[in-house]
Structure formats: structure tokens, C-alpha cells
């Protein structure tokens, strides 16, 4: 019967519909209120708010990616900023090419910063950057490839724990220095900016902003669904098992390194998408995004939201980013105290983060219940 099936649905998908629902409603609300209502009206949502939320959602997706590897697989990556930034640069390069001859030097072929470094032609790695499809490909392939190379090296030689974290940090640090170099052909410290339009739609029109915002929300929803599916599949259980006792997993015949690389790559790609959505909305990508401090901040979102809980990660990202925006505005001189204090307090008082606030005993009970239901469901499947 219908109600029964709905119940099953909930058992099956847990927090998924809730999160997706919230996202949908927010998007609807924001877009309607931004487009339908005029400046004056009380219901109006300013474009500023739209871009702000858009940014937050990108961060949320990023947090999701971090949580997938840290919360579920126990890989603490201090280098996810690199994947985020690479995705961003892929998008940035595309947008840069879309400027065409509307740059200040009016050169149809080269972006301004190349003209100014008097480069004759595009460097090879910019080839194809004017194609939307290629951009999409690069957004995924860039971070994915880096993650695959780094991951398969590190995990195969069983670099783990703190060592891994420091190495990921070194990775993103090296990339930052590299992208700062003007010879690299990515605009050096100024990065890529002054974008005009995407697929012919002006980036400055409210509609485009709303669409971008909605897309970000969509990607977040999809990302959430994907992660949700992964962690609830048997594979997800293997990954959790790896987190708890890697050697055991090995001795029952799994290859943890493969699983780790796989999950690392998936996570990197998610981060890449987040970066790609981030750039058109904030309007600039520069090497600062690679800075190790950013990557640490991402980890902190997850820690605050609650590692090992997907919606927790999202909450964490939203809360911290919002706090930052508010604090920098209200108490410019003192906001670092507040932020720092927040980090300390949360780690001390809510070790499981906001999502894990409920006492762990209750947690276990819930867990057991959930599994029971799952098993029952399985039983049902078997019978049918």
C-alpha cells in the first residue's frame, strides 16, 4: 500500500528527502522573491543575498566532499582546497575565453593578462578551453586526475594518518606557489577575473545569477544523493570498515587502497564541481584558493557540522560561512576572536559536531534500529 511504501522510502533514504526538500524550497523562495518582487517590497531578496547563498551552497558541496573522505573513510585531507581551486580554474579558463575581444586590450584570442605579458599565442594547456563541453570535462578530470595520481601513490605505499594529512597540505601549498607564478599562464596572483558571460548569458543579469544559484542547489542535491547512496551501499560499509580497522579489511580479502583511491577521486570531483559553480558566482578565481588555511577551514566546517554525517557537513559549512559573513560585517576588529572561539568550543563541547549532538547512546540505539529495518527489508526482498 502507499503509506507502507512511503515508510519504506524513508527507511531507505533517511535524511535524503529532507535535505533535498529544504534545498528545493530555499531555491524556489530565493528565486521567486528575487525576480518577482521589486527592490522596495519587504519580500524582496537582494541579488547580494542570492550570490551569497550561492557561495554558501558551493561551500556546502565542498564540505560534503571532505566529509565523504574524512568522515566515512578516515582520510583527513588538508588539500581539498586544491581540487576545489582546480575545478574553479577550469571554469575560469572557459569564462576567460568567453570574454573574447571585450577585454581591455580587445584581443580576440588571448586573455588580457597574456596580452600584457606579451605572449604570442595560447599555451597548449589552454587548448579547448573555449568549449563548454571541454570545460565540464576538465572540471571533473582535473581534480579527479590529481586525486587519482596522488591517491594511488599515497595509499598504495600506505601513507596514512597525520603523514597523509601533511602531504595533502604540501600538495596544495606547492600548487599555490605554482599558480602564483606568472609564467604558469593562469594569471598569477590576480588569477582569472572580469568575466562577462556564460553560454551567452550575461553573468551580471539577475536571471543568470538565479539560474546559477539553482544549478548549485541542484548539484548539491545530486551530490548529497550520490554520497548517501555510496555510504549506504555495501561499498559504503567496506569504506567505514576501512576507517575502523584497515588491516582487518585487508585480511578478509579487500584492497583498501583501491577503495580509498576511488572514494578520494569521487570526493575530489565533487570538490571540483563546487569550485566550478563558485567561480561564476563570486567572479574571480586566484591562487589564494589553494592556500592551506582554506583547506583547514573546510575540515573545520565538517568537524563543526559533525563528521560522518552528510547533512552535518552541509550544516557546518553553512553555519561557519554565515558566521564569517556576519562577524566580518558587525565586528570587523574582533571577528577572529569569535570564529576562533567557535572552533575551540565546538571541538571541546561537541566532539561529534552539531549533527552528533544527540547522546551517542541514543545514536547506537537508532543505528541498531536502522540496521534492523534494513535487514528486515532485505528479508522481505529475499522472500519476494
Amino acid at each position: 500500500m502507499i503509506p507502507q511504501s512511503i515508510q519504506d522510502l524513508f527507511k531507505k533514504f533517511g535524511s535524503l528527502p529532507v535535505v533535498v526538500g529544504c534545498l528545493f524550497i530555499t531555491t524556489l523562495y530565493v528565486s521567486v522573491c528575487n525576480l518577482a518582487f521589486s527592490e522596495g517590497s519587504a519580500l524582496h531578496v537582494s541579488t547580494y543575498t542570492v550570490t551569497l547563498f550561492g557561495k554558501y551552497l558551493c561551500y556546502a558541496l565542498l564540505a560534503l566532499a571532505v566529509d565523504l573522505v574524512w568522515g566515512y573513510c578516515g582520510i583527513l585531507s588538508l588539500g581539498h582546497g586544491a581540487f576545489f581551486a582546480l575545478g574553479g580554474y577550469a571554469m575560469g579558463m572557459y569564462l576567460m575565453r568567453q570574454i573574447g575581444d571585450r577585454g581591455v586590450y580587445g584581443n580576440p584570442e588571448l586573455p588580457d593578462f597574456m596580452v600584457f605579458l606579451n605572449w604570442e599565442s595560447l599555451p597548449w594547456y589552454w587548448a579547448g578551453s573555449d568549449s563548454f563541453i571541454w570545460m565540464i570535462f576538465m572540471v571533473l578530470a582535473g581534480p579527479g586526475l590529481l586525486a587519482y595520481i596522488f591517491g594511488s601513490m599515497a595509499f598504495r605505499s600506505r601513507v596514512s594518518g597525520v603523514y597523509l594529512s601533511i602531504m595533502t597540505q604540501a600538495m596544495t601549498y606547492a600548487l599555490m606557489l605554482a599558480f602564483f607564478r606568472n609564467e604558469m599562464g593562469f594569471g598569477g596572483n590576480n588569477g582569472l577575473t572580469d568575466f562577462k558571460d556564460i553560454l551567452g548569458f550575461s553573468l551580471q543579469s539577475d536571471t543568470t545569477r538565479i539560474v546559477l544559484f539553482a544549478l548549485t542547489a541542484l548539484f548539491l542535491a545530486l551530490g548529497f544523493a550520490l554520497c548517501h547512496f555510496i555510504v549506504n551501499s555495501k561499498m559504503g560499509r567496506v569504506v567505514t570498515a576501512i576507517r575502523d580497522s584497515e588491516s582487518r579489511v585487508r585480511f578478509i580479502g579487500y584492497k583498501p587502497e583501491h577503495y580509498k583511491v576511488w572514494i578520494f577521486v569521487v570526493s575530489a570531483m565533487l570538490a571540483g564541481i563546487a569550485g566550478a559553480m563558485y567561480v561564476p558566482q563570486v567572479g574571480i578565481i586566484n591562487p589564494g584558493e589553494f592556500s592551506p588555511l582554506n583547506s583547514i577551514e573546510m575540515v573545520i566546517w565538517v568537524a563543526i557540522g559533525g563528521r560522518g554525517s552528510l547533512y552535518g557537513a552541509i550544516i557546518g559549512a553553512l553555519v561557519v560561512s554565515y558566521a564569517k559573513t556576519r562577524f566580518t560585517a558587525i565586528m570587523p576588529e574582533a571577528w577572529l576572536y569569535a570564529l576562533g572561539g567557535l572552533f575551540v568550543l565546538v571541538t571541546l563541547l561537541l566532539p561529534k559536531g552539531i549533527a552528533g549532538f544527540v547522546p551517542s547512546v541514543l545514536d547506537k540505539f537508532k543505528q541498531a534500529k536502522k540496521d534492523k529495518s534494513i535487514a528486515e527489508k532485505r528479508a522481505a526482498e529475499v522472500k519476494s
Partner: protein
Amino acid sequence: MKLKKLIAASSIIATSMVAQMAYAAETIKVGVLHSLSGTMAISETTLKDTVLMMIEEQNKKGGLLGKKLEPVVVDPASNWPLFAEKTRELLSKEKVDVIFGCWTSVSRKSVLPVIEELNGLLFYPVQYEGEESSKNVFYTGAAPNQQAIPAVDYLMNDIGAERWVLLGTDYVYPRTTNKILEAYLKAKGVQDKDIMINYTPFGHSDWQSIVAEVKKFGSAGKKTAVVSTVNGDANVPFYKELGNQGISAEDIPVVAFSVGEEELSGFDTSPLVGHLAAWNYFQSVESEENEKFIAQWKKFIGDDKRVTNDPMEATYIGFKMWAKAVEKAGTTEVDAVEQAMIGITVPNLTGGTAVMNANHHLSKPVLIGEIQENGQLEVVWETPDTVIGDAWSDFLPSSKNLIADWTKPVNCGNFDITSAKCSGQNF
């Protein structure tokens, strides 16, 4: 304790909102967009205070158009995307009438699209690489031709330098400046082998090798000079290394474009006496305005040791000009003020007058000063007359044909005089 802060914070939100409601009508809002935390805080907080000081003074005189000025300070935290976001906040949420802000080129670049989209007004008070002129931005700092070129002339003619070391941090300002200088030097017949160019990362702290290299380069028998576009934080270790490796200003003078009184106040200058800096303003210059300004500043900041510097003068001039333009236009409406700005003159702090030209750049005197033990800079040379800021350098192939002119009929930031069309800009 932190919780208290949070509570305090939220209460502040509340009050500030109320305040906005109350004032919005009869105040003119002035946005202040300078990093108060992060790496740039060291330079930018001073400018924030300067703006606040100017606003206070203006309000003492009864504000503008009979309204009080209300500062809106935000902290973009040396984070470039945040600059864009905060600009949007200032313009669309706080509805400020003008913004004073930015220091680094990248922050300006990040703000630019937003400012242009929302048709705001930005006063940018720092010496920069040029190659830009936006309808919505007024550049009150020096363009390369108001700092670099005269400095090189001085070294060439008065010091007799024949070999050149161009040191810089690897970002756009040094890159551009050095390209311009290289072109300029070659034009003056300096050979490649007599030019050494070196770039270092931000905050570079170990200068041993580079200084040693400079020393070798300088020991080739010809008079050698160093032109430094090294950025803020890296300067202290650089100069300390210079001092320790015994490179005196008489052997190899170093002329710096980003080192002013404030940077010098950060370390012990006795080993550096005689090294040079090129600016449009020095605290040591004697003029009434300057003495008044310095006194006012020390009083405002409540510290007798605090120094003044060139970006502060730029801010001062910018603010005065804006105020004058608003009076002239009789409104704070951006387009009106923008037009009113052009041709406005105010006395600068070095005893001359600053003029806002049609390319949104100022006319400034160029001063070369020598570092003294007390961290001040004594003028040893200055241009006979003020120099007009050139938005597009004539020494760069990419921009030699471009001019900026925001008056009719051209009314364009990058007008190509050969093709006689306004390249690029889609507004």
C-alpha cells in the same frame, strides 16, 4: 567568554539595523573597504583610520550637503573573493554613496566587475601598475610614470648608474613596472647583460642568495643600482640582509617603490641610511597642509610615534576631491559626481595642487627620498613640476596606442587611438 561575544555581536546587529533605519534618510554613507585582518591588515588598517579621520573632520564642518557622513566599515580579511562580496554588500545592502578601499591589485580587480555592475564609486589610494581605467574608479595613487620612470632617471643622471637590478615580488605590479622599466632602459641604450631581473614569492624571507647575487652583479666595475618593487612583508628581511651583507647605499643604492615611512617604522633603519624610495609624498616634506595633517593624524590615532605615508596622502586627496565634487554636483549620485570629479583641484600635502584628470588619474609631483636613521625619508630630488598619471604606459607594446578619457566625446577607459575605437569594455 566567547559566548558573551556572540551575544554582544547579535545585539550589535540589532542596534546597527535600528540605526540604519533611523539614519538612512539623512546621512551620506561612506564605505570603507580595507582589510583589517589577514596579511594585508598591516598596511590597510592605517588607511581605514585615515578615512575615518577625514569623515570625522568633515562632520565637524557640518558634513556634506547638510547631511552627516556615516562610515560603514567592513573587513574583507585580505581575501580577494571576499572583497567582491563585501563590495556588493556595501553597494546593494548598505547603499553607500562612495567607497574608499583596496590596496592590492588583485583586490581591485576582484572589486571592479561589481563596482561597474552596480555603478558604484571607488577611490583607490595606492600606487599601482596602471593598464586600467574604469568609469567607476578614481586612481589617486601613482601610475608607473609617476614613480618608476622618474626614479630611474634620477639614478641614471644623478647617481650615474649603468647596471640595473630589477627585484620584485612575483605579481602584476612589479611585473608591469619592470616591463616598463626594461623597455625604458633599453630605449636609453642599456644592454641586456647590464639588466638583471629577479622575482621572489610573497613574504619571501630568506634573501641571502639573492643579495649575494646582487653583490656579485654589482662588483663588475660599473655603477649598479637596484630598483625594488618588493612587496610589503618581504622588505624587512630584504633590507636586513642588505645591511648585514654590507651593501651600502653608496656602493649599490636601492630605490624602492613600495617602502614608505610605515614600512620603515617596522624595523631598525640605521644600516639602510641613504637607500632611496620614490613616492609622491613624504612625511618629512615641509608645508602647512602637511604639518596640519600630521598633527591631526597623531591626535586622531592617539600615538605620537605613528607616521604618515603616501597612500594616506592619496586617501586624503581622494576624500577632499570627492567632498568637493559632491558639493559641486549638489548630489551624491554617482554619474553626476563622476563628471564633477574631472578637473577638480585640491591642495596636496607637499605644497602643490592635485588635479583629477580626464583619465581618472591624478597629477602628482614625484619625490625621491633617502632613508634616514629615524625612519624618515629626506627629499634629495623632485620633479620640477607635477606629472600627469598615465593609465596606459607608452612603453608597453600592448598599451602604447591606448588612452583613457572619460569626458565627451571619447568617454572611454581604453580608447585605441589608431583604430579610434573603444576596445573591449561592454558598458
